């Protein structure tokens, strides 16, 4: 092989490798948009965060994946689990659960903790815990472990005609869960669902359970 060929092959290999690395970095760096609840916030006023859970997102790239959705302050649903809230502020959360439920792997996460009064409101009724072995069970949880916040989301009847494409409308069977908590000081706080709800993955904790934008996210608290 001539020297020219060797140089050409070396340069070609380098370019291919560099492009591969660049695409990998770009793919890994890609993240969902962030919904900003802190913009224009008046000190002393609460912030209202609205979320929904859906059993299957219904759209590319992962139509079968279970997912959270976030409603922006402007009213539109955004496929993201990243949002910003102001520090030391009352956060009023409303979650519409459109998914079915099941018994919990660990009933300890059936407890409501870390909210104001350690209570939540399920369809208007005050609850301290959800018995996951009764009724429709628990579909998901909304949990910020570092803040001790955990709210079990009561499930829908699995035999009902459940919403399968996000965003879901209130016409589909749903459970409404409301609760409030005080945001801490500035920082990034990971939140997640504790129910291993990713069917088909090891122990139910793969795929959407380990992907930002589906069942995990960050609450960024800003000053």
């Amino acid at each position, binding site marked *: 092989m001539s020297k020219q060929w060797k140089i050409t092959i070396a340069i070609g290999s380098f370019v291919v490798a560099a492009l591969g690395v660049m695409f990998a970095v770009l793919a890994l760096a890609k993240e969902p948009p962030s919904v900003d609840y802190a913009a224009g916030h008046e000190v002393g006023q609460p912030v209202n965060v609205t979320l929904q859970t859906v059993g299957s997102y219904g759209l590319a790239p992962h139509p079968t994946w279970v997912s959270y959705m976030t409603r922006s302050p402007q009213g539109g649903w955004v496929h993201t689990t990243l949002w910003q809230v102001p520090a030391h502020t009352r956060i009023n959360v409303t979650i519409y659960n459109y998914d079915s439920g*099941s*018994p*919990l*792997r*660990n*009933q*300890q996460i*059936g*407890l409501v*903790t870390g909210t104001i009064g350690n209570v939540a409101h399920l369809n208007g009724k005050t609850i*301290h*815990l959800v*018995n*996951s*072995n009764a009724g429709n*069970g628990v579909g998901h949880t909304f949990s910020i*472990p*570092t803040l*001790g916040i955990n709210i079990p989301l009561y499930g829908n009847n699995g035999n009902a005609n459940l919403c399968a494409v996000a965003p879901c409308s209130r016409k589909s069977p749903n459970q409404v869960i409301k609760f409030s908590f005080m945001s801490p000081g500035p920082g990034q706080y*990971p939140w*997640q669902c*504790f129910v*291993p*709800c*990713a*069917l*088909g*993955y*090891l*122990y*139910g*904790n793969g795929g959407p*359970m*380990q*992907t*930002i934008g589906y069942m*995990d996210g960050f609450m960024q608290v800003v000053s």
Partner: protein
Amino acid sequence: MSEGSDIPPAGSQPADGDAEPTETHHWWRLIAVWVVASAILDPLFYVLAGPHIPPGRMTDTAGGAQFDFNVLLAIALPVLLGVWIFMIYAIVIWRASRGGPDPVGGPAARGNTSIQVGWILTTTVIVLFLAGFGTYELVQPGGAGGGQGPSPIWTPTSHTVLPVQVIGQQWKFTYRYPTYGGFETTELVIPDHTTIAFHVTSLDVIHSFWAYQLGVKADANPAQDNVAYTTTAQLGSFTVRCSELCGIWHGAMYNSGRVVSPTAFQAWATATQESLQANTKLLPPFSYTYIPDANGADGGLYPDNVDPYSKIQTYGATPAKPTSKG
């Protein structure tokens, strides 16, 4: 050096009329400085810095780990001093002077029997000592705070052992107190001057319970009861982290615990048992391990081992005998 002991060291210059130290003199000087420095600094380090070496002395196993670190550092310090003293001596005494002759290499160490035998003997003694010392310290005291599996080699002699079950799941630890009705909580509170038996298990993948200041570290394997003992010796708070890469929120899988007085512990345990009563009724009976539904996406927590808690004498109330479920 035995060979060529009359050869001047590298860079040395005979001065007019001055008696130049021989190589043997240089070695004796080096050894004397090293022995004096080690004899002063080693005990000083042990006495002054030793008590502050992590992980502290909150438990007997943490104290054991601190002692081990101090022994290792006490052995390492003379080695470090030897290297530094030789380097400094060489730089000061054997450096090339400006305008002087070029440095000349000293006699070769290769083939020097004294150095080779000395080196092999010294390192062999150190390594064999560390092997024996390390093996002994893995077992004493208290099993070194490591997970010993379901049948521990070291078991406590204390008659007031508090069993605490540590349950790992993606991505948090919860704690179950079988002798207080089997309540399960995210808080880890333990009494002072008490032997604790941590029964570590997992509901999904492999985690690792690492209570750093307690000197306790035990893997949390699904369907395994990994037992680790420690005896508390100081009041205070400690950090619990997962030390086995277990998924996206592995880095956020931490919380803190407290060592409190036995009275405060009794009050906390009783109050928590009462406040969690409603949820405790919904938990499965206490078991060393739990097998989730193989489906993975749903299913409750099914006891895998339904023997009553009877491995060791228990602390507090007598636990109710668990019954099989599922």
